[in-house]
């Protein structure tokens, strides 16, 4: 049935997003331990920031697409859970720095420690959220499979 299919697709997609988010994180635990060579760490950090710059928009779009799908499937509870993040994304994009092209981060300020720390924190929070929702969707799917 359609509902199950939709659920399954969510599952896949959410997995994808989680994966993206992992990459989006500028500093993974391995690097944090790797204080032996700070310069190497910094180079990696920069690369990750660059990846993040490219990944931010797809992430927002996929999440928005999800919400639309939940809306179609009339999954009100799930939608409700996702609404705050959607709102946050919209706010975040509205309050981005003056920029002619699409994008969220200003290359001249991204290296500011405050902003970097904020982005990092944001990344971890979202990662946690996506992981939790992933398991929630998984549970939802199995529940539907079993009950049908």
């Amino acid at each position, binding site marked *: 049935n359609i509902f199950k299919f939709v659920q399954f697709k969510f599952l896949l997609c959410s997995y994808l997003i989680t994966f993206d988010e992992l990459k989006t994180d500028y500093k993974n635990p391995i690097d944090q331990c790797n204080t032996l060579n700070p*310069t190497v760490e*910094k180079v990696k*950090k920069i690369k990750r920031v660059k990846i993040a710059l490219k990944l931010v928009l797809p992430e927002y779009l996929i999440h928005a697409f999800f919400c639309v799908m939940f809306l179609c499937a009339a999954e009100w509870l799930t939608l409700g859970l996702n609404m705050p993040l959607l709102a946050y994304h919209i706010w975040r994009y509205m309050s981005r720095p*003056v920029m*002619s092209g699409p994008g969220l981060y200003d*290359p001249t300020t991204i*290296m500011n420690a405050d902003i970097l720390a904020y982005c990092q924190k944001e990344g971890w929070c979202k990662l946690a959220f996506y992981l939790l929702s992933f398991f929630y969707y998984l549970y939802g799917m199995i529940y539907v499979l079993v009950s049908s």
Partner: protein
Amino acid sequence: VPDGAENTAPGGAGYSPVQNSLMHSSQMLDGQGFGSTVPGLYSHQIPTKVPVHPSSGQYNFGGSQNVSLLSNQGSGQTLNRPPAGLISMAPLQHTSSVPQMLPPSQNSAAIPSSSSSFVPGAYPPALSNWQYGQTPMSQPTGSQTNHFAHVAGTLPTQPLSSGSTNPATSYQYTVSPGGPPLQNSYMKPGKKDKVNIRTLVQWHMFGLSYTSGYKTTTYPSPVPQNLKMGRNVGYSYPTLPPGYQNASSPGAPGMQSSPLQYQAGPQPFPQPALGTNHITGSMSGLSLQPEGLRSINLLQERNILPTTPLQAPVPNLHEEIQKLNCNPELFRCTLTNIPQTQALLNKAKLPLGLLLHPFKDLSQLPVVTSSTIVRCRSCRTYINPFVSFLDQRRWKCNLCYRVNDVPEEFMYNPVTRVYGEPHKRPEVQNATIEFMAPSEYMLRPPQPPVYLFVFDVSHNAIETGYLTTVSKTLLDNLDLLPGNTRTKIGFITFDSTIHFYSLQEGLSQPQMLIVSDIEDVFIPMPENLLVNLNENKELIQDLLRTLPQMFTKSLETQSALGPALQAAFKLMSPTGGRISVFQTQLPSVGVGSLKSREEPNQRASAKDIHLTPSTDFYKKLALDCSGQQVAVDLFLLSGQYSDLASLGCISRYSAGSVYYYQSYHHQHNPVQVEKLQKELKRYLTRKIGFEAVMRIRCTKGLSIHTFHGNFFVRSTDLLSLPNVNPDAGYAVQMSVEESLTDMPVVSFQSALLYTSSKGERRIRVHTMCLPVVTTLNDVYLGADVQAITGLLANMAVDRSVSASLSDARDALVNAVIDSLSAYRSSVLSIQQPGLMAPYSLRLFPLHVLALLKQKAFQTGTNIRLDERIFTMCQVKNQPLIFLMLMTHPNLYRVDNLTDEGALNINDRTIPQPPILQLSVEKLSRDGAYLMDAGSVMFMWVGKNCGQNFVSQVLGVPSYVSIPQNMTHLPELETAESTRTIAFISWLREQRPFFPILHIIRDESPLKSSFLQNMIEDRTESALSYYEFLLHIQQQVNK
């Protein structure tokens, strides 16, 4: 920075002092930090008289002396750098190779010796005073006194164990013998007659220290241990300047305004192995509070401003280390005592940060040519005076604590021509040094100097007539442009179209090529537009002569700045270089066109002003430029609003500089014309570094938080600077990430890699070392109020852009309130009425009030948006000294200048009048006053000013005949005139920009600007200093 391969092959190493052509007069102080090593101690003190030639005289100071100094050096260094195998040590002394180990028996001898040495110092009251205070304390515990002994400098090499009690020691903190500037600061406030003759004083001290030091040496050392190094003992004393210290401590008796805080520093020395931390505890146990710890009731101190320029506080380090430390003009920290943890820093409520002036013109700069640049293998720190040598073959990095090998080549010291003295190499003796970089430091062959000038030639621009001035100045200075045979130059002009000038060889006259397609700019004949300066000089001169006349009939009012910049970028991108843009109006066509956003009626409301750029075109272009090593300098000469907030981005992110000449007009505003001429000359002829990067490293545990200045931050500690100029300053905010436990000192290192105009790749390295403290009291003790103000100003600019101006103003006031209330609640044990501030922060409220009244942050309608933004740009880009002058001008009375206490520089006598407080109450009608506000000077002549001054200096018969807009002093053949002119030109010489002198009297329209700078007085929209203090008191006591 490309990684330098570790090259172990021994190669020729050369070492040569560089005499910088651009030398600021007052910078003889640099000499002491730069050109010299330990043997140069004495020459430090006479920098102006004897140009230091490190290669010859200094280093070959005489064999025996060298030997002794070597041992002295090794031992005195707390960083534990023993000359290997020199001395066999008793276990107690293991931290260092201590040449004089004073046994108790000798102590009694040591005391009289040093006190007798104080007699020539001629300040017995101070001595006795301090003796009284110190002796009882130093008696009971032998080990503690030692710090004082160190401090005293009388016995810098004494080990802890010696336990000698030396009453004189307390003076140590007053002086760092290596720092003439400090001596000055100490001399001045205390003494009535203000001895400002630096060189003279230094000579004087030199004599004193020598004799007294010598006296001390005559005491025999009866103990075998000493005899071991007996031949050293006698000679190691010359580094001990007791008399010298004594001579420089007269600041102390002054009590009221003398900078006693430095004396007090009861903190331990950064001697890791000595474990000196207990001294603080023992001090706090005493009822006697050192003067520097004194807190001041700001509400009661009326004359808080020192009469001489405020000097940077001296880090409380062992004098041997402090002597090597970086000059505070180049590298300065807001807290000279670094708090151990972030929690402590948060408690102090003071910002932690660095203020740098890395490319400052230096009169003395050691340059090292070596095939191997010794750096730490893990963190890539350059070897510096604060590393420690474990033995001759290994050194320990002072930033990451990794142990590195000393390469074979480094074992040989080219200066002394001795093998096996790595710790005597110039790299390890100078905190500021320049390396010639080998090819590993080049990503491409060093670029030639390339200069491109972009002129606005629209109708509006021609009206102002700036082109004549600029062409003429350029023509005059064409030969002085820094460069070599490879120098290239090019010109672009634009109105609504873009004009290129082909300067191809063989042409009889320059050929103008017009590109009218501004939507998609292309470069016609790119090879002939940027041409070699030397080979085509005649064509270039021809062009510059005709340029001002070429567009006189132009009726084109549009300005296509954006496309012109794009064209310039395209032209420059293969090589990199410098673009100088002259713009006179708001760009109106093509990409990057802007709309007027200024609404004069709303200037008053601090809320809605446009400080942020309206488009990111200029920022993006600047980043492209930065990527191609192109910097853009903007000269804005505009009468109307030109949206500097947007335009300024082009310079800000490409590491350029912004110049703003408000209402420039060749006839109506001759003052600005002269200013442009002078500043352009400096701009064209000053040193320049191309394709530069700057990296700032700091000891593990500290981390860089935010950068301030003009650049692009390429990674968390790397600044991309397509061009670097000697007039740019930078600020860095820092945080303590990990607790600095067990670290007695931390170090900061800035390394600037650049290509000189001669095509050499060079690295200029500055290293600064600061002690770490654990108590809040010590943090306050080491606060550098000027640096704090400078950093706060930078932060406030960011705040006003990201939030709003009123937010930034609140933040500034809160900074004062927070720090003073933290001081009140955490440090002061007895709650006293009034507004208590630590001595080091006594000027903090005044400086912050000055910031609030400064153009960048003031409220009110009388400031135009562009001017405000320009001031913000200056805050970000100016070195600290000029920023402070801009914020808090100096006021002098000039109608009674005398030669008493005058400076003598190159046969010129420069009077040194005292600095007055910025309050109208200090003005009297029968005087004349000079206000030096950095980029502008005012001379206010009182109504009843002496006839003598009016006629002898101003050259007019009477007060009423002083012309309305007088900007020059006539050169008259009178002593008064000579003095005044000498003083003013001396002030002007110290800075890269040209301050205009306005001579004003009561009726002058400029009087309001003059009074605006009277910071301590109330203005229409701002509080007076006293009211401000009351306001703070109210908040603090809440």
